[in-house]
């Protein structure tokens, strides 16, 4: 690209980023030098590793890259998504292998009493011992423990609102001392909320009927019988 006439004053000066500073990180027990500030997943690539299990959307949405990490001299092991966390000097991390959580399978349309059915599908859900480890493990900052209790007490609406941010990384699962899979419980509650406890949108059903009854037929015929120029003119006139 040609950037002639570019104003030199309009530039963000941060010399240290121009010449990346190298930092030492420990990846699954082995030390590597990587540029400071790159994401954890890029540090893995930089170290020469190919990542297939653990790379997904790379945008913080799919939950594939769940990672445990610890920063220098801090005993606390934290969780993050590798695609959206920057490395720093002295950081050690390892990606989390998929955890064998049990997902209950069900036919949504055949549920009779979804709030009660929760206890058949996930009998461990009410056994939460309030340790709060799930909440601490959530890289999305969801109050997971509260969500589990809301599900148990039938506040599916509350659950669905809290868990809209959930990327299903599953980091809440291995830490649970009651063997609950909070993300799966929440997903069940959210789906049930949508399918059973949310108003049917009237306007949508009217539109479905209108289309089925052929209400737009004459308009379609008019449009589809136009020649290219006529159609172009119609489109050009759209505001």
């Amino acid at each position, binding site marked *: 690209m040609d950037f002639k*006439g570019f104003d030199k004053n309009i530039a963000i000066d941060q010399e240290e980023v121009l010449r990346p500073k190298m930092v030492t990180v420990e990846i699954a027990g082995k030390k590597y030098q990587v540029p400071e500030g790159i994401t954890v997943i890029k540090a893995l690539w930089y170290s020469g590793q190919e990542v297939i299990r653990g790379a997904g959307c*790379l945008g913080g949405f799919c939950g594939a890259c769940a990672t445990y990490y610890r920063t220098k001299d801090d005993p606390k092991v934290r969780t993050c998504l590798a695609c959206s966390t920057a490395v720093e000097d002295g950081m050690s991390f390892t990606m989390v292998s998929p955890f064998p959580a049990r997902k209950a399978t069900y036919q949504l349309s055949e549920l009779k009493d979804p709030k009660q059915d929760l206890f058949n599908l996930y009998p461990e859900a009410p056994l939460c011992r309030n340790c709060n480890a799930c909440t601490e493990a959530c890289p999305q900052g969801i109050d997971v423990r509260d969500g589990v209790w809301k599900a148990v007490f039938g506040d599916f609406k509350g659950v669905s609102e809290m868990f809209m941010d959930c990327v299903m990384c599953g980091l809440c699962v291995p830490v649970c001392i009651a063997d609950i899979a909070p993300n799966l419980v929440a997903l069940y509650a959210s789906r049930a909320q949508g399918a059973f406890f949310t108003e049917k949108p009237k306007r*949508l059903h009217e539109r479905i009927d209108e289309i089925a009854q052929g209400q737009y037929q004459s308009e379609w015929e008019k449009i589809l019988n136009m020649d290219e120029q006529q159609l172009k003119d119609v489109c050009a006139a759209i505001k």
Partner: protein
Amino acid sequence: MQLQALQELVHKTRDARRNQTLPKYSPAERDTLIKKYHPDHRENAYRPLKFGPNAGDKTVRELAALLEGDSPVSAELDLMPTSSTDVLVVGGGGAGCAAALHAHAHGAQVLLATKLRLGDSNTVMAQGGIQIAITKEDSPVQHFLDTLKGGHMKNDHRLLKTMVEEGPTIAKWLLDLGVLFDRDPDGNLHVKKGGGSSKPRLLTCSDYTGLEIMRVLKDEVLNQKVQLLEFSAAVELLSDGDGACTGAILQDLDNKHYMVVAAKTVILATGGIGRLHIQGFPTSNHYGATGDALPMAYRLGAKLLQIDTFQYHPTGAVYPEQLVGALVTEGIRSEGGHLVNAKGERFVNELDTRDVVSSSIIRECEEGRGVRTVTGRLGVWLDTPLLDVESGLGTLEKHFPAMVRQFKRYGIDITKDPVLIYPTLHYQNGGVQIDVNGESGVRNLFVAGEASGGLHGRNRLMGNSLLDLMVFGKRAGTTAAERAKAMKHGKLTLEHLARFRAEARKHTGALAVHSPMLFPDYARKE
């Protein structure tokens, strides 16, 4: 100059800009702008294909190499099937899951293979919403016309009419599966206005629409016990030697072994090409977006459409470096966010179509009105704090929690400061030519979603991709399942490959690359 000082100009000019209305460009102005600045018009980035169904058609060099590429599979491979199914779905994103669910519901035996995990896709990242004409003021016909205009009149009319008409039943299907769309106080579905649309038509789940839909579809695929093969990539298709597709060869990515799958029908739902980084662009796409369907279908003789046009989403992050290429949702502009150049001026109607907005951002940067970051990237400002100014404190936090979170991770508060953006490679406008049931030019080979072409013309409108996936995933799944019921498995051969290789030898001297690519090669070698 420091970042803060430059941002200051955005803050200072905000009030003046609020009173300003920028007209949209006339059709003639749009054409001139796009021809001059849109990456689709950079001649030297393109070359004609030398052979195959699209011989002579131009496409970007990166894709041309893959289309003319060689299969990794040897002609001597033993084609004794390792498994057999009615319908083989390749790809585990929105289109793949929709296809698998509908095929399953129509009584077919379904095998879904995906090279990453079920649900790892671009679908999961879609923030803007799904376009469905449901309000009284709106109609499927209006949706059709808006899309046609956005696509520069090059959309396939039949595909487009099918999509807009089936939108409302798709919304119902998703609601029945438990998808939680945003509502109005009266219980109706809330609609937002998207770029290039004349009416508010976007159904949303805050700015997590794709995530919410993907979470539910993935869960439903598991509930229906659809047979799954994760970390298994399709690398070649099989044919009966008589022009029909009869299965595929998958590669287990853990042990590299090939699996031969005999299938009565195959549905390719492998998504787009962002990770080819065409023309060196960063991308908003997921790790596996390497366009696998295109070379496989091409070798089998399927014609591709509009493979010379790609969508560069106007607002990809350019700062901080960790977020380069990541998408800043169009929702910000839908809700009134301004694009501002280094002089503190607006330069385009922010709700114009994506190609127009992208072209105008590139124009600003090339003409010296861009802001340069330390890593040498150029961009313009997206005035995010304006939304809180216009609609009250907390607006961003409430409507764009994903974006607030994304930047907060790097110490940037988008409710207080604007963000730097530049177009990012976002979508493959074209793809494999299909009919209204998703069937390609090759019998029993279906293609759904971004891998297919024709529906969006030369520019896709925001919110039409999610609908595309659901409508054509459904139609491909349904048709493939019904077809499979009435037929037997075909012969399994690689005859098409022998023909393709013979033709390749005539045209290319050098050894071709292997395709599909499967993954970008990011691991450092030295």
